[in-house]
């Protein structure tokens, strides 16, 4: 596979194929980051589109010439786009969501979840109850660095050294961020589990 550095050079020069390669490589990570931060899939897809269109428009000005630098730049665009979404949302009147599943879950996914998630897993708990909004709120409570570490490690699959270069910190600091991010997330989701849906929990206990 062609090194990302060379792909970046070609993309900066306007090569369409190189842009496609970058898109395919980073779509999953960018979408994952956004999906962790907004409540519904449609919004996540809209914002993901914005990010990649901005990538196309701005890649000619990009100075980074390695994968870590490019990822940091792309995540920076993503963060700004998500922040813009929330600013816009604050200006709009509050909307009451209709009941229903905003995320289309396949049966296979449901099976995977049911087979692998004990009742003590807070993510499982919130997913099962189709309350992704709780996960989003918990993720939004983390710091930006913690979010970037989680996305880099869990979704993009980068090692600690790459993430360290990406966010400009040492490897040990990244490990600490990774630990605290997961720990905070676990604590937040556990709290929500007990505070937001006590009646459902009681139902399950009865069953």
């Amino acid at each position, binding site marked *: 596979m062609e090194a990302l550095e060379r792909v970046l050079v070609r993309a900066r*020069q*306007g090569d*369409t194929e190189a*842009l*496609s390669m970058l*898109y*395919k490589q980073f*779509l*999953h990570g960018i*979408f*994952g980051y956004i*999906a*962790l931060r907004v409540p519904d*899939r449609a919004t996540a*897809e809209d914002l*993901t*589109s914005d990010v*990649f*269109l901005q*990538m*196309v*428009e701005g890649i*000619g*000005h990009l100075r980074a010439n390695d994968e870590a630098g490019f990822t940091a730049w792309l995540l920076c665009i993503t963060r700004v786009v998500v922040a813009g979404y929330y600013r816009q949302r604050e200006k709009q009147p509050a909307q009451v969501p209709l009941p229903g599943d905003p*995320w289309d*879950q*396949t049966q296979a*996914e449901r099976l*995977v*979840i049911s*087979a*692998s*998630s*004990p009742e*003590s*897993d*807070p*993510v*499982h708990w919130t*997913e099962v109850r189709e309350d*992704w909004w709780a*996960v989003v709120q918990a993720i939004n409570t983390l710091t930006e660095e913690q979010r970037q570490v*989680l996305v880099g*490690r*869990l*979704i993009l*699959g980068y*090692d*600690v050294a790459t993430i360290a270069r990406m966010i400009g910190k040492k490897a*040990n600091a990244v*490990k*600490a961020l*990774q*630990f605290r991010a*997961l*720990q905070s*997330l*676990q604590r937040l*989701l556990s709290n929500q589990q007990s505070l937001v849906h006590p009646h459902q929990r009681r139902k399950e206990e009865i069953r």
Partner: protein
Amino acid sequence: MKSLYDRLNDRLEHLESRNWHNGHHPSDFMLQEPGRGDDPEVDALIMLARRLRVAPRLQVDPGFAQRLERRMLHRHTELQVQYSGMKRPFFLLHIRPALGVALCLCLLFLVLSISVLALAAQISDPQNQLYALKRWEQHLQISLTSNAGDQASLEIQGARDRLNALPSLADPAHTVAYSQALADLDQQVQTATAAIKELPPGTQRQQLVSELSGLKSDTIHILRRLLPKLTLSERLATTGELAHLGGNVPYLTSGMLILPPHPHGRATISLSGSDLQSGAQLLVDGKPTGVTGLLQNGQLIFVVVNWKGEQHPQSLGLVDPDGTVVQTTAITIGTANGNTTSDGNHNGQGNGYQPTATPDTQQNGQSTSQPTQDQSSCPGLPQAQKLASKYQLSTDSHEAAVEAICALHQGTFTGTTSDGTTVTASRAYGYGEIEQLLTYAQYLASQDQTNPGGKLSDTNVSSYLAAALLTCGSSLEECEQ
């Protein structure tokens, strides 16, 4: 034992290496990693991480991915069309940031240069570092002007700037700056004059001639006003500039110094030239002596009473009553016994001292040369007459006093003392020596009880000179002591 951070990281990496990089679907590893039980805290976090990693809500819809890719590439094509439509230089800036940086630096340099030039244009002090820049700017401006009339106009304008700056520099603290400004002014006036000469007759030429004339007139006026405030060297330069501008200033052609026969004696300095005035102060080697001169026969005569030894000055000059200062290095040096040497660019007048202009002195300071005896019968007759006049004797060349002085100068003196002793001097005395003899003769006359008035007169001068020679000896050593 490893920290929680490291243990968590090790577990995550272990899972990744086992599953993600072996071609398995990311969700598979969840099924293959049982909780270890010995590290519950890390186990819980690993569980959470796995759940996040494979959460179906984070998976991209393939249809959306394809649509977005097409949309993105379409946008890319649009942008390429837009870029190609842009002007070439700006397009270059987009793809070559270094070119943009260089262009920005050039613009910054340009702005800075313009600012500095604008600042330099306000500078009038030649000692300021920006003054040279201002001169260069003006020079460039003039050299870029092809029309001689415009050049002359710019030169006149520049000269006026210098002239306006001069009064602020007319003090001892700005000697160098004043001289520089004066030199610049002179150069610009000369250049303007030359440029005007190139112009054909016409309105523009007349106008510029009028402007230049006005400038010269103003310059002369201002420089004369500044003279009293200036140091001697500045006055000298200013006088030169006044002369260049056609001002009425003294001019020296040569100087003559008659050294005394012995140290600390009386030296006589005569300066020749034009536009000289009585009352001018003597300068020797650029230093004022405090001696004022009398104008006699167009020459300024200075008598320095206490001339120091064999001092041979390099320059002689004068400070005119109007403040102007002139100097000459064309100096002829003579001795009272008749030897002469010439310095500077002035030619000597021969082997012996031949005074040619020893004027009669009158009360009004004007001089007349009225030789009453044939010059050939008494070389240096005017000097002899001057000596006679100094001791209040008759200056008539046929009277005894002048005849006695001339005879001493020619080595033919014969006199008889009051006691009848005849004294003959075959040695030719210089006028300085003769003056010494006269001084001693006057002393003898004042001491002589038989002399009713106690003074020298035409009737007794020969007798007392003989007595003086008798007392002093032919070499005058006794009298000098």
